[in-house]
């Protein structure tokens, strides 16, 4: 098991290296002089030359690559072009907000999605199944920024129950939790529908397995078959999809972050792209890839833990 986890982590590092190489290549293929971007159009040629030497842009490309990877291996993601602050520090500042939002959205969405999916299977082919089906597709179809705006208008502006913007003051746990409700609702809602659909599909597949017929032929109650047996199999099938989805949430929550003015990785990436702040873009993209890879490793380990066939093959 330890070896399995170490191997997964090693593979994750390889993926991150590939991402870093692609990013490095892309930075050098972007048209335009990076010194102009950094120093502005009114900089003198001397200033640009000095900057080029400072950043090591005058050296051969392979030397630059070596320097880039060397810095990366020390956890140095470079500096913000404008504020000159280390990118890593900036990311670590907003990361907790992003992770709490993603975790909060996901816990309730996955829990409710699984419950709805199971309910649809229990009443398979009857009206609750149809109702949950229509509801789920509807939830998937509504974009999260629409939910964001409407929930903001209803619960924050009209009813004034919850804060409209911000992430709460530092140290104020209740305030932070209250500020989390609306964004996590907006982000999670679509996932409820999505998870309930895949849980339903995976459960129906599981209920068609031969062992379910065996259990039925022994008179084992349907509820027991569904919750004790089929759900475990269905969860394994859903797990990897959920893990990828969770990775996507870490940057995909950009709309909710903008609407609710929350600091976060998504908003940071968006701002950096708009202002051509390349080191920050690189840093956030690398960080997102790292989080994705972490999610996949966790999903693999959980799968190995739940599935004896996978576990024994380790």
């Amino acid at each position, binding site marked *: 098991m330890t070896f399995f986890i170490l191997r997964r982590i090693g593979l994750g590092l390889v993926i991150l290296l590939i991402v870093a190489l692609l990013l490095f290549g892309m930075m050098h293929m972007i048209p335009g002089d990076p010194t102009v971007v950094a120093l502005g159009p009114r900089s003198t040629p001397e200033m640009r030359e000095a900057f080029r030497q400072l950043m090591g842009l005058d050296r051969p490309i392979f030397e630059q690559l070596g320097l880039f990877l060397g810095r990366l291996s020390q956890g140095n993601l470079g500096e913000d072009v404008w504020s000159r602050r280390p990118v890593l520090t900036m990311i670590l500042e907003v990361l907790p907000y992003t992770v709490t939002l993603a975790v909060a959205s996901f816990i309730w969405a996955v829990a409710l999605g699984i419950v709805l999916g199971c309910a649809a299977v229990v009443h398979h082919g009857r009206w609750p199944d149809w109702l949950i089906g229509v509801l789920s597709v509807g939830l998937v179809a509504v974009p999260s920024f629409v939910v964001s705006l409407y929930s903001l208008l209803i619960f924050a502006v009209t009813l004034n129950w919850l804060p409209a913007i911000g992430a709460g003051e530092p140290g104020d746990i209740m305030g932070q939790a209250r500020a989390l409700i609306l964004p996590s609702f907006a982000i999670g809602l679509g996932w409820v529908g999505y998870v309930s659909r895949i849980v339903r599909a995976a459960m129906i597949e599981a209920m068609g397995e031969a062992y379910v017929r*065996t*259990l039925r032929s*022994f008179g084992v109650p349907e509820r027991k078959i569904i919750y004790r047996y089929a759900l475990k199999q269905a969860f394994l099938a859903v797990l990897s999809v959920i893990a990828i989805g969770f990775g996507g949430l870490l940057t995909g929550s950009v709309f909710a972050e903008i609407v609710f003015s929350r600091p976060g990785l998504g908003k940071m990436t968006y701002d950096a792209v708009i202002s051509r702040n390349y080191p920050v873009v690189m840093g956030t993209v690398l960080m997102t890839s790292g989080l994705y890879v972490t999610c996949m490793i966790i999903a693999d380990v959980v799968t190995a833990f739940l599935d004896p066939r996978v576990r024994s093959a380790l």
Partner: protein
Amino acid sequence: MNLEFGFNRVTGAALAEPVLDIGDLTISYGGGTPAVQGVHLTVRPGEVVGVIGESGSGKTSLAHAVLRLLPQSAVITGQHLSLCGTDLLGAPDKTVASLRGPGAAMIFQNPMTAFSPLHTLGHQLTDLLWRDRTASKEEKRERILAVLKQVGLPDPAARLETYPFQLSGGMLQRVAIAAALLMRPSLLIADEPTTALDVTMEAQILHLMRELRAESGVAILMISHHLGVIAEICDRVAVMYAGRIVEEGTVEAIFADPRHPYTKALFACELSLIETGISRMPVIDHEALRRIAPVMRGAQ
């Protein structure tokens, strides 16, 4: 019908109330051509009855209909379908469920898929004893170990902790038979129990079933397309073709003197009886059969 065969060949027990009594049973899927048509079949206590036929003859539909295990699209009609004296035709699901296990227990074709891959065998066998709410965990464990021993599984205590994928098909089929015995059923329905196994395993499983039958006197309904299996274990055999039973009698009588053209054709296809050195394998000529046997007309 077949009163003269209604005694136990092994114990010579007198006529008794049949365990399974099927009268004029018809099964169709979604209103199409019936898969089973007007079938009569009885199984008496301690008797082993075989149903033989090729793929699609309706024998598995018949076996699964007893415990209402067919898909929802199946429509079952007929005079009666009595299991242990209870007519299950039109009976509420609850009644059927109460007889699943204690009334009739099933053994399925493929032991490799008959158990959940994600749970230990001990866990699954314990769950089958869900009806018994008074027995403690240890009592259930003892009962499970006893039946596993009975079916000749080596080191049963260790097997409880294993997962299905860690055992061979033959071993798993033994566990499946043990699971059925755990229910102390009146009838054992074996749906092609040896088809997914290799020849050695097949012989072992048949031997086991013969032993169990001699020990416990359980009635068995054996579904197979393999004449050897039927000859090995059954007292009586019913030959199914296109959803009907075309011939029925003692194994000796049918094997010695098959009357129906389909039965003859089936025998002609039996590999162990085919002469060596022939250039073509025999096939069943359905067109010819339909001409010879008018009962087949419109059946397919």
